[in-house]
């Protein structure tokens, strides 16, 4: 991994079109500004983690998990 030191207001350029600016430093928090073409996807890492966790949980279901749904429907 490439590690760079930046001060407040300084930035990093990635390729020709992506720019990351250190907008604010407050204690343990850093605010970053990201300038990128519209088609570039930018997500907090936690989003991917949440989706992975959700996928794992989803894959543990079986059609039998839906029995109570069927029951619920047939009661109507």
């Amino acid at each position: 991994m490439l590690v760079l030191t930046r001060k407040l207001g300084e930035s990093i350029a990635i390729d020709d079109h992506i720019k990351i600016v250190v907008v604010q430093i407050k204690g343990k928090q850093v605010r970053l500004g990201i300038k990128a073409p519209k088609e570039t996807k930018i997500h907090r890492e936690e989003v991917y983690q949440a989706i992975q966790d959700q996928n794992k949980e989803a894959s543990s279901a079986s059609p039998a998990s839906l029995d109570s749904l069927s029951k619920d429907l047939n009661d109507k």
Partner: protein
Amino acid sequence: MQISTSRFGLIEINETDIIKFNDGILGFENEDKFCIVDPNDQTLIVWLQSVKTPELAFPMIEPQIFKADYQANLLPADLASVQLENQAQAYTYNILTIPADISEMSANLKAPIVVNPNTSLGKQIVLQDNKLEVKFPMYKELKAAILSFKQSDDSVRTSYRPAKATEKADAQTQVRMITLSRPDAV
């Protein structure tokens, strides 16, 4: 060909029914071949079944069933990743999480499964819209939708889902949904 599955037993599929996920599914990066199985129960839920791992399948559903205004806004790069020319050609599904208490069932709106039925390519696409939830509760809406489907007959139900694609292309090039015979008909 036959594939074995832990949920549905041995099922017969055609090579053309296999959907290729070149990037896998998030958290399951080594799984790149799936098919869509409709257990033909009354729930409107279908399963994204791994071709190589019998135990691996994800329950999923078309978002229009429980959220009429859902719109997966795909970027040009997203469309290109499954060789789609436009969004209207895509099959879109949301993966469902089904906990022990089924009333807490939720759908992943943030990262839908997008399938191009003409090229048999699929991808779980993480949408940029930050308002979309990974766990969107939808049990009540699903129940209401199923009940309204039940009042209509089965032919209406089956034409509802594949209609988008089957209408416009010849069946040979289309991914087919594997519809199992009704368990209650045995």
